[in-house]
């Protein structure tokens, strides 16, 4: 996975807000994953498949942060999400 990869949510998920977190359940794996406020914001931006570089551009703008930090944090989070089976990743 890198800045040019396109990521999107997988289909078999249910989710709900609880105590300020977004709780995601991967139905096939039967496992929960929780997202805090920023994670939830990123998740909401993945409603349709998105190129990671584009995602980071808008995040850097909205959070007024530098691109390198954002890219590093986003890749770490997306890596975890991929491992948990929450997103699919297509690399060019």
């Amino acid at each position, binding site marked *: 996975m890198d800045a040019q990869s396109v990521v999107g949510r997988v289909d078999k998920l*249910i989710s709900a807000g609880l*105590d300020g977190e977004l*709780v995601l359940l991967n*139905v096939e794996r*039967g496992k*929960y994953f*929780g997202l805090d406020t920023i994670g939830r914001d990123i998740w909401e931006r993945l409603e349709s498949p998105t190129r990671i570089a584009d995602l980071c551009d808008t995040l850097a703008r909205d959070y007024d942060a530098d691109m390198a930090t954002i890219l590093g944090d986003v890749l770490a989070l997306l890596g975890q999400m991929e491992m948990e089976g929450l997103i699919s990743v297509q690399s060019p």
Partner: protein
Amino acid sequence: MTDYRLCGWRLSSDLPLPELPIWDGDQRPAQITIAHGPTPEPPKPLVIDGPFTQLSADGSLRFSLETVGRFLVRGDGHITVAPHPQASGPQIRAALFSTPFAALCHQRGVLPFHASCVVINGRAVAITGISGAGKSTLAAVMARRGHPLLAEDVCVVDCRAEGGPMVLPSPGRLKLWRDAVEALGLTADPADRIGGAREKFDLARIASFHPSALPLAAIIHLSITWGARDTERLRGTELMRELKGGIFRERIGVGLGKVEQMFAASLRLAALPNWRISRSDDFARIHALADLITELAERPS
């Protein structure tokens, strides 16, 4: 045939079920029947095919324990039992109220939760935790203090009720290991023995059982620690994981296609105060633990 009340349902049974109150409700037809009869393997395809449990895609389940008997639970609430000739009544009923009972609950859209449930000042408090954490022993201590029980081992919750989750009254039993019976200062009477090689006893005689459904007020999650005792409020994803771990025979619910219902039910439970108590593995402190639970039940959410 005798008609009993189980979780508010009318149950008509060939098999004597002394743990259940006799049906005293309206003239509705039985919603669940239990009869002796053949217990063939459920039709293929099977969504669970284990050594004890087979679940068919049509929603019927067979549960087999070699020395106890076989149970076939159909999706429409009809249960067929083929007991082993040497099995005792308590053994057969202990098996019936395990996996077959869980299947009935999942089929009927109520949540079987692995917990004891005690009544504290008119409010139901569920006590959950891994096997061996002390759910039943605590229930026994609470019962001796005069608190009625609503459930032991499997606490059935109707999370669809409008006013919040309701605990439905479960079979009146109180299963304890011999060491717990003796540590409570009671006698391990052979007449209470559930049977088999396991030294487990049903001490239902020391408890009173609340006869009707009550709103669930709080859930206590017990865990054992070697360190200091600690109490914390569980929230968010961590709480949802704990609740998921507490669903009794969850994989049967999954096999029956109830994942979304169980998720919705868990969210309703998560809206209640959920407390984790880490307790030391020290029997002498169980009374302090009972005090703490009584206090938490009163604490406003």
